[in-house]
């Protein structure tokens, strides 16, 4: 293995584990019925929603190659599939991949 790549992986995993470990450590004194727990629960959901929205609207990586409109169309159509399939998670997920490939190729 190349030393640079191994160091980069170790640094990345350390930076990731730090937040997880601190979270596990500080949650020891928190009761699941406490207000602090409820607040953190809201923070977690809002943070995840912000991350997902940012990934779709301001993507990094390969999604940059798809236009804003094609990403939006795929997301809205996938949500439509999600609701008409009685909130099944698998159909809209597979649909989104096929839809994105088609839209990006032909539209």
């Amino acid at each position: 293995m190349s030393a640079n790549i191994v160091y980069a992986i170790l640094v990345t995993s350390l930076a990731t584990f730090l937040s997880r470990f601190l979270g596990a450590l500080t949650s020891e004194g928190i009761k699941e019925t406490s207000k602090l727990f409820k607040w953190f629960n809201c923070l977690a959901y809002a943070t995840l929603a912000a991350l997902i929205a940012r990934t779709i609207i301001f993507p990094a990586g390969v999604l940059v190659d798809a236009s804003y409109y094609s990403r939006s169309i795929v997301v809205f159509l996938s949500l439509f599939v999600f609701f008409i399939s009685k909130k099944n998670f698998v159909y809209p997920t597979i649909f989104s991949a096929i839809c994105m490939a088609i839209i990006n190729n032909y539209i």
Partner: protein
Amino acid sequence: MIKKNFFFKGYRSIFTHDSPAIALTCCFIAIGALFKNLGFNIQESIFSTVLTYALPGSLVMAESMLIGASLLNIFLAVWIVNARLYPMAVSLFPLMMHRSQPKWKYYFSCHFIAISAWLIMKSNYKNIPKKHRIDYWIGIGSATVSVSVIGTFLGFSFSEYLNKDMMLGLAILNPVYFLCMMIGASKTIPVTLSVLLGTILGPIIYLFSPEWSILIAGIIGGTLAYLVGEHSVS
């Protein structure tokens, strides 16, 4: 030690009809292909997936390496992107804490905190006795990591067959799956409001502070949602 039946019950959650297995595999196929293009070998790619097990962090590492960033820069960039794991841990571990369970289980299993495993646990924990939730959680985490490793291996092995359209399809799959999961989890006023406010504020704050947008949006959106929830209860 780990109670086997709860561990395997958690492990099997990856095979249910609404499992994240497909989305996770596809995302890690994309990551595996990306690692190969970056010059990683198969051992390094799998090593990275097992040790990091967080998609945004892996993407940031890949991008940082592409522009030749220092190790300190990689650490800070990944830490900021993955700081969301802290509130996720604090909002999950109190549900699993039990006096009879050894601490090492909690410290070891915090590595499994990622959106997919977190959302599975959040929607199923009530069906598991509190004493054994940690074993169930370790089962979920082991299953999601296994799926991620398989995805990375497939992506690395078949990267030359993945054209741009296929990579795009794989990349959109993950946010769509998690968006659906978040909407599915929105059953109470505070959670629904948190999801809504986070979705709106995340991109808006990104325009002013790209690095901190997720955390700031999470804190503002989550706090507002919590206050509204408390007010509606009282």
